C-alpha cells in the first residue's frame, strides 16, 4: 500500500517535471518569437551607445532590415551603417540559418569590395558592442535545456523565471536566467553566468512600447559585468510589415542600399 503510494507519487512527480520542462521550453519559444520574429519583416533605425568603465562613450547608428522566411526559422538581416562618419555606407548582411551556419557579407565602400565573412563564432561581439551576434539575431530555444523556476516580478511586472543550460558546451555562458513578462512574453531581464558560476552579463529591456500594434523593446541594454561596460540600443523608429523582398538581401544591394527603406 505504502509502496504503491510512493510509486504513484514518483509517477506524478516525473510527469509534472516533464510537463514543467516542456512548459519552460514553450515559454522560451514564445519569448523568442516575440522578441526576434515580430511581424514578417521590420525596418528599424538604431542608435547604439557603448559606455566603458571610465564613462567614455562610443556611438554607432545604423538602419537594420529584417525579413522572416519562416516563423521561428531562417531570417535575413541587412545593416546599413550611418555613424561614425568614417564607416558611413558600410553594409553588412546576414542570412541566418537555424539548422546550419549563418552566412555573412560585408561591403567596404573605401575599397568598393564585397566580402563574405566566415562566421563560426556566434558569441563574438557585434560591432564592438556588448551584444553578440547571437544576441542580435537570437539564440534558438532548442539549443538549450530549460527549467521553470518559481515566478517573480521585475519592476512590478509578473514574470516567468526560466533557467537555461546549453545542451552543447558553450563558451559564451554556462547558465542563463530569463525573466519573461507574462503579459507580453518579452524578456525583461536575462542574467548570464559563466563556468565559474559568476554573473558575467546582464540584459535589460529598459523601455517597451507598442508600435503598429506590435509590442517592441524600444530600449535595451547589455552590461558586461567584468569589463564594467554597457551597451544601450535605442530604436529611433520601427516599421513593421513594410513588405521587404528577399532580393534586397543579396550582394547587389550591399553596394547600393534600398533607398526606399534607408534614409
Amino acid at each position, binding site marked *: 500500500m505504502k509502496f504503491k503510494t510512493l510509486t504513484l507519487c514518483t509517477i506524478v512527480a516525473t510527469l509534472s517535471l516533464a510537463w514543467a520542462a516542456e512548459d519552460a521550453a514553450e515559454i522560451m519559444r514564445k519569448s523568442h518569437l516575440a522578441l526576434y520574429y515580430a511581424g514578417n519583416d521590420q525596418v528599424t533605425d538604431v542608435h547604439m551607445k557603448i559606455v*566603458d*568603465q*571610465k564613462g*567614455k562613450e*562610443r556611438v554607432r547608428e545604423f538602419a537594420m532590415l529584417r525579413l522572416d522566411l519562416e516563423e521561428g526559422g531562417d531570417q535575413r538581416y541587412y545593416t546599413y*551603417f550611418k555613424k*561614425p562618419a*568614417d*564607416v558611413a555606407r*558600410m553594409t*553588412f548582411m546576414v542570412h541566418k540559418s537555424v539548422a546550419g551556419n549563418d552566412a555573412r557579407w*560585408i561591403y*567596404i*565602400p*573605401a*575599397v568598393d*569590395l564585397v*566580402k*563574405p*565573412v*566566415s562566421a*563560426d*563564432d556566434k558569441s*563574438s*561581439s*557585434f*560591432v*564592438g558592442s*556588448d551584444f553578440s551576434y547571437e544576441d542580435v539575431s537570437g539564440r534558438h530555444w532548442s539549443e538549450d535545456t530549460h527549467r521553470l523556476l518559481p515566478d517573480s516580478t521585475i519592476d512590478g511586472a509578473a514574470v516567468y523565471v526560466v533557467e537555461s543550460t546549453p545542451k552543447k558546451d558553450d563558451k559564451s555562458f554556462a547558465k542563463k536566467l530569463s525573466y519573461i513578462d507574462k503579459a507580453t512574453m518579452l524578456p525583461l531581464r536575462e542574467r548570464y553566468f*559563466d*563556468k*565559474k558560476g559568476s554573473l*558575467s552579463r546582464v540584459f535589460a529591456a529598459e523601455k517597451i512600447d507598442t508600435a503598429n500594434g506590435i509590442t517592441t523593446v524600444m530600449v535595451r541594454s547589455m552590461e558586461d559585468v*567584468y*569589463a564594467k*561596460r554597457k551597451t544601450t540600443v535605442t530604436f529611433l523608429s520601427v516599421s513593421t510589415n513594410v513588405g521587404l523582398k528577399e532580393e534586397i538581401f543579396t550582394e547587389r544591394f550591399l553596394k547600393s542600399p534600398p533607398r526606399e527603406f534607408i534614409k
Partner: protein
Amino acid sequence: MKRASLVEFSIKHPVLTVVTCVILTGVAASQLPKITIDTNPKNMLPETSTVRVFNDEVESTFSLYEDVIVVGIAHPNGIFNAATLEKVQRITDEITNLPNVAARDVSSLTTIMNVTAENGALKVAPPMTEVPRTDEELAALRKSVLENPLFIGRIISADGKTTAIYVPLEEGANGKEIADKIREVVGKERGDEQFYVAGDPVARDTFGAVMFKLMGVFSPLAGLIMFIAIFLMFRNLSLCMSMMAVAMIAITWSMGLLIGLGFPVHIMSSMSPVFLMAIATDSIHIFNEFNFRYREKRDKTAAIIETMQAVGRPVRFTALATAVGFGVLMLMHIIPVQVFGGLVAFGTIALRVLSFSFIPAVLTFISAEKLEKAARAGDVEGGWAERFLRRLGYVGAHRPVITVAIGVVLLGGAILGISKIVVNNNMVEWFKSGSEVRTADTVMNQALGGTSLAYIVATANGGETYFQSPEAMHYIDGLQRHLEKLPVVGKTFSVVDYVKRINFVLHDEAPAFDAIPGNKETIGQYLFLFSMSARPMDLENVVDYEFTTANVWVQLKTWDAQAMRDVIAAVNEYKKTASAPVELRPAGIAYFNLVWNDEVLWDMVRGFIIALIAVFIILAFNFRSLKWALIGYIPLLFTVALIYGVVGFIGKDFDMPISVLSCLSLGMAVDFAIHFISRLKQRLAEFPDLQEALLWTAVRPGRGIMRNALLFASAFSVMLFAPLTPYSTVGAFIVSMMVLSALMTIVFLPALIVLLKGWLFRNAAI
C-alpha cells in the same frame, strides 16, 4: 656618566632590570600576531608616484592587465599534433576556470583572434576551435598559424615547437598562487611535452613568498650558529644566552613596535632581524673585555664596572654610528626604505641600552666558578689566537711602508674595478640558474618574443582619429621596425599590424597588399571591420576609442633594466629621425621595474653618502680630532672600495640588494676602527709607548674585533646557500666585509698610525 649610573643601577637591581626587560619584551611580543605582510615590490613606490599613475592610466585606456602569466607548452617535434593540441585546449579551459584569472581575456590558440582568408571569405576566429584530427586539418592549422605574422613570437615560436597561453590576472591576485595552480593543471598531463610557467607576477610573488620563508629559516639558523660560535669562544652557556637574549629582545622590541604602529612588514623590513642580529654581536666586546678584566682582578662587580668604563665609550659610539647610518635612511624618499632605516636605528639603540643594563645585570647572576672556567678557557685558547693577532699587528706596526704600499695598489685595482660596475637589475636573475622560475623564463625567451613586456604609448596632438591616418600608421610602423633592431626586442605589435593584416587578407593574401593603405577612410573601415568580429579587447589593447592614443607592445627577451633603457634610448633616437605630431612615452611592467629599481637603488646610494658624512662627524666627535676621524675612516672606505672593486671585476650587476648592503657595511666596518682607536688612545694614556700600545691593542681589543668578525661571518655564511641570489650576495658580501674590515683595522691601522705619527701626535713624546 648617565650610562655608568645605568650600569650601576643594573648591578644593584639585577632582578628588577631583567624583569623589566622581560615585561617590555612581552608587551612587544603581544603585537607580533597582528602582523600584516606586503610582498609586492610595487609598493616600494607610493601609488601616487608618476610611473604608477601613468601605468594605471595606460592600463585603463587600453583595457590592459597589470599582471599576465605566460604558460609555455613545448614539444620536441612541434606542437601541431592532435595529442599536444588537445592538451593546449584542455589546459586553456582549465586555466580559464581558475579563480582570479581574467577568463574572458586568456589568449591561446583556442581563443586568440585570427584574421584569415578562407575560400575567398574573410574569417575572424580563433585558429583552433576544435582539435584537428586528420593530417590535412593539422597541416592547414599549422599553415594558418605560422603564416600569421601577428602570432609568430607571441602565440607560437617560429619553429612551431612552442606555443604560449597568456593568462591575465584579476587585480590584486597573487601570481605565485595562480602559478602554483597552473603547475598543478599542467602537472596532470602526460606525454613528451614540456611545460613552463613564466612572467613577472610569477617571479615577483614567488620571490616575495620565498623571501619571507627564508627570513623565517635564516634568522634562527644564523642565531643558532652564532650561539655555537659564542659558546666555543667563551665556553660559558650563560654568556651565550645573555648575548642571544639581547639580540632577541631587541628584535622583538623593534618588530613589535613596527607592527604595533600598524606598518605592514615589507620585503625590506623583513630583513631587519638579520641586520639586528648582526649588530648585536657588538656586545662581544663587553664579554671579551670582561673576560680579560675578570682574569686580572677575580672580582666580579669590579670587573663589570671597569669593563663598562673601558668599552663603554667605543660601544656607545659604534652604536651611535650604526644608528645614525641607518637613521639617515629615514630622510629618503621611498617609504619602505624610511621604515627600514628607522626600524634598524631603533633596534640598534635598544641593543645598546640593553648592553648597559641587561648584560651587566645578567653578568651578576653568573657564579664565580663558571667565570673562572670561562676565563681559563680563554687562557688556553688565547695561545695561538694571541700569537696570530700579535703577528698581524706587528706586520702593520713594523712594516708600515710596505703595508701601505700594498694597500694603495689594492685600492688602485679596486677603483679600476669600480669603474667597470654596471648598474642593472633583473628580478628573474634573483632566482638561481636551474630554478623553475628562471628556466621557464629562459626557455620562453629563446622560443618566443620575450616574457618581459613594455609599452610605448603614442599620444597624438592632432586630435581625434589621428591614428587612422596613413601618416600616423607609417610613423608607428617605422618605430616598430626601429625598435626591432635592438637584440633585446623579440617582437613588437601595434594597431598597424592589424591594419596591414586585414588589407592583406581582404585582397586574398596578395603580397602587394601586406602594407598600410593609402587613405584614412580605408583604414577606418578596416578597423571597424576588425572590431565587428574580434573580441573588443583585441582592438582596445592597441588603440583608444577616439584613435588619439596608440599603444605599441614591445616584448623584451630579458628582464634586465638595461634592456628597457635601450628601448627608451632607441625611442628617443627615432624621434630625431622621424617627426609626427605625436608624443611617445614608455610604460608597462618592464618600465616600472626599471623605475622602481632605480629609485630604490639611487635612494640607497644617496642615503649611503649622507650616512658616510654623518658617520665621519660622529668619528670626529668621538676622537675629538678630525685627523683621527680620517684615520678611523680609512678601513671603512678601503673595505667598501675593495668589495665594489670585486663586484665590478667579476661583472656582478650593481643592483638593489647590493645598494641596501652598502648601508650595513657602513654600520659595521666603522665599528672596528672605533674600538681599535679608542682603546689604543686609552692604552697610550696609561703607557705612552706607541709600538707596545699598538701590539696590545691588536691583541686585546683586536681579539674582540676578530671574534666579532668571525661570529658575524660564520652566521651569515649560511646565506651563501640560499636559493635566491640576493641572499647569496648578502652572505658573500657580509662574510668578506667582516673579514676584510677586521684585517684592515688590525693590520692597516697600525701601519698608518706609525707612518703618520708625527702628524697625529703633535708635541707628544712617543
